[in-house]
């Protein structure tokens, strides 16, 4: 196995593009190293991106935030501006594993690993985040909901990597939230999860909404019907009930060791409603 730690994105892309056997990007390694130790993957080339300086930075720009692909989830939680603007995204990143895991792992890695239960992804999807991709043929941008294409499969082509995650600027009277269900308090994988981002008008009526669910389908799903259920409302009982129904209707889960179809479908509604209530409050709604 060859290990490389290039200092520029260009070099990293070059290595990946030229690689003959299986090649993997190494960010925090909290998925990759576990899979290597378990004997599930045997890479010929590992390209560590942590020496690439721009990938270690969070940049606040006029159009939002650019989170380098090698920024750890713990670092995201230390960035006050980011925490203020996107509390839902940051709390999702802060739920991954434990303190130790968070000090290594990244949201880009979480996204590329393409687990339907990935914690940061529903929050990123609800936020309308985009993945900035670099490859041998240049740059492209992909909405995060299009990065994972199935369990463990992502849309990146040979030689491509994610350089950064882009979050839009926080609009006024808007807020987001993320909730996951686990039977324990930590060190667990989401049985079902929900990310919600809402924007209100001056009267507290919802004008924009994005609702995303995790662990209920092969990939994280953006539920347009759930957004529709709350737009134009003040998140009253009836709107919440409709939101819950739409969330449940969007679920195509499986029965597995972590939960049943019935349970996931029901709890998806509960979490979507509760996350919406938090987001609504964060947006200034009463």
């Amino acid at each position, binding site marked *: 196995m060859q290990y490389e730690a290039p200092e520029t994105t260009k070099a990293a892309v070059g290595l990946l593009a030229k690689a003959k056997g299986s090649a993997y990007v190494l960010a925090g390694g909290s998925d990759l190293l576990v899979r290597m130790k378990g*004997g599930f993957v045997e890479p010929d080339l590992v390209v560590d991106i942590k020496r690439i300086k721009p990938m270690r930075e969070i940049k606040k720009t006029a159009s939002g935030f650019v989170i380098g692909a090698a920024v750890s989830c713990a670092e995201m939680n230390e960035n006050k501006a980011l925490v203020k603007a996107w509390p839902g995204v940051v709390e999702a990143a802060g739920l991954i594993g434990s303190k130790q895991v968070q000090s290594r792992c990244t949201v880009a890695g979480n996204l590329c690993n393409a687990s339907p239960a990935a914690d940061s992804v529903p929050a990123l999807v609800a936020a309308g985040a985009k993945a900035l991709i670099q490859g041998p043929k240049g740059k492209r941008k992909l909405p995060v909901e299009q990065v994972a294409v199935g369990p463990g499969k992502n849309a990146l082509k040979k030689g491509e990597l994610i350089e950064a995650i882009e979050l839009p600027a926080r609009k006024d009277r808007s807020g987001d939230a993320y909730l996951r*269900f686990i*039977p*324990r*308090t*930590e*060190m*667990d*994988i989401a*049985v079902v999860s929900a990310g919600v981002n809402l924007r209100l008008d001056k009267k507290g009526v919802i004008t924009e909404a994005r609702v995303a669910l995790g662990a209920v389908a092969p990939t994280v799903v953006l539920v347009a019907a759930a957004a529709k259920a709350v737009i134009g409302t003040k998140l009253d009982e009836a709107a919440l009930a409709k939101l819950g129904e739409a969330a449940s209707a969007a679920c195509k889960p499986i029965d*597995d*060791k*972590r*939960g*049943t179809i*019935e*349970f996931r479908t*029901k*709890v998806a509604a*509960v979490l979507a409603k509760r996350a919406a209530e938090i987001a609504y409050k964060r947006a200034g709604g009463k």
Partner: protein
Amino acid sequence: MASESTMAHPFEDAPNHVTPTVIHDPILSKTDFRSVGTRPLRPDGLDKVTGRARYGADFNMPGQLVGLVLRSPHAHAKIKKIDTSKAEKLPGVKAVVTAADLPDHTGGDQSMYDILENCMARGVAKYDGHAVAAVAAVDAPTARKALKLIKVDYEVLPHVTDVDEAVKPNAPLVNPRMLTEGVEPKPKKASNIAKRTEFGHGDVDAGFKEADVIVTRSFRTEQTHQGYIEPHACVASVSPDGTGELWVCTQGHFVYRNHCAMLLGMDVSKLRVTSSEIGGGFGGKTHVWAEPVALALSRKANRPVKVTMTREEVFRASGPTSASSIDVKIGARKDGAIVAADATLRFTCGPYYGMWAELGSMTAFACYDLKNVRTVGYEVLVNRPKTAAYRAPSAPMAAFAVESVMDELAHKIGMNAVDFRIKNAAKQGTRASYGPVYGPIGIGATLEAAKKHPHMKAPLGKNQGRGMACGFWFNFGGQTCTDINVGPDGSVTLTVGTVDVGGSRASIALCVAEELGVPYEQVKCIVADTGTLGHNDMTDGSRGTFSSSMAGIFAARNAITVLRERAARMWEIPVEHVTWEDGHAKAVGEKYGNLAPLSLKEIAAAAGNTGGPIAGHSEIVADGAGVSFATHIADVEVDPETGRSKIVRYTVIQDAGKAVHPAYVEGQYQGGAAQGIGWALNEEYIYGKDGRLQNPGFLDYRIPVCSDLPMIDTQILEIPNPNHPYGVRGVGETSIVPPLAAIANAMSNAFGVRMTHVPMSPPRVLKALEAAKKA
């Protein structure tokens, strides 16, 4: 070696051992203590927190090889052929073994044969994870490659993993030769029921006729694992001269020695076993798994071999507890008196004969004074790993069923749950449902303490409920051999043969310091290897501190006899005029009273001139382990929309006899409760339709993490065990017995739903809540 099988199953004769023979010996009624009851720092603490302590995988030998085990991916399959030729040819591979390298030396001892077959499948793989071959190679990558080169030709057979499915008439047979024992006449047709046992007394049917209220319910509990943090690990080294050494993580190195010697066809005295520090065992390290395989590999390779199980192997192949299915029926009069109690218990054993339903049957009603009681147990074979003991084995499941019905019955007759239990609690002189008559016991006292505990009266929050339950465990004594050696400087080495799983080195040293009258710091307790002492039973049945402190105290008394003789010699006076007080020899009587007392140090310094080294020895069967009772109180909060529950407050009240080191006793109470809470809420083996274990890791086998638990409150009661010099009872196991029921009762009190299936995981609770809403 017929006694071997009783060593493998020490609880088999538990009824004999627990019958209290009350000894009214004044020497056994010590009440004023100097060392016992204090809380010195743990002697193994510094090494454990700094990483210096050596666990199973920390032993290394020059030239050591890496041993890995190939395991069956099938729940049940005939092994038609194993081709190891390619693996053997791989450079770096030094030995490959299969069952052919472990010929049968068990001489008709069925329980040892089962252990042999469990270590390495013999013709049939009986569960997912069953070992079929093993390799020893120069490094792990080579060993892993070699495993892939072993070709096993399987013929997959029908399997059964579920307890209720396995007892159905047309279930696939796990062992086609198994004829149910304990049924008259002995059946001619094989089944998955290995044994039927029955306990009780009185006339149950007549009793139920007197009942005003009867509650009947069926329960299920899923299989759990002990979840010890340290996986099984050992280094084996067999010399061509036929002697061998084994360094191993175990609860009983003498037992491991005896097992391995038998399975390898060696003399017991030629195999020396050293136990490591142990990162948890809880019953799961009471018989051998990989050790005979490591020895066979070493013998074949003529090199030391280290075998370390992965977590996945620990889950798939080493000792889980039983899954169970239990029916309980209890009847009571309106005044709260129980008139009859009946239970049928089906417990899984894995593919081999076990005594798990039997233990469940014995413990089920042990807390109560019952006129008419009956329990029937069925040992059920399934294609799952061989069941091993897990902390008070089988008692938690039985208590879950019985204590749930007790609560429901109390509710139905309109009596407080604690008062109802107090009214029916067993007392001194009660004939236990499993046979013996109790001596002084603590069930009533723990219930009275629970009633008075502030926890009982504390206000509850929204969606919270409070429950309580009782638990019982036999405790065990067993064979014990201990040495005391006084060093030339007067410091004392205390050599024990019981592995320290919960702080017993400190506790035994406290007892010996007490008896010798010297400070605790002057006594150093070590766990010796098997070459040093006579046979010691393993540390199970909560016997470590109970039995080794008893043997330690007797050894100290023998050492005191020697010390008095030496002092007499130093003074040149008759030994009858020398007593031992406060760590000093004192001359007594008019003639000698003015001689200055001699300290242990002074006597030790002179030993070279008074007869040589000073020692005390003791070998005993530590009979009379006092039975143990506990009452727990649990506050549970349930999210009614998700079924997720949280333990918000928890109290353990238990009789310790005498708490030698109270901090360790509290630790045992808390640890057992923590494991019970995990079992109650989330832990379970999940099998797929293919008979494969779906969750062999801590990610999906959910033991509680720290933040899942509240600080667990403890209250130690001391009702002295008359059979121990200081009144000690075992305290290690009873604390895991009540939590399942206490939590179920709390949920019932909060929401009116009776949970009958453990674990009470969120999907099960949510379903029950919704069903209750509809009804």
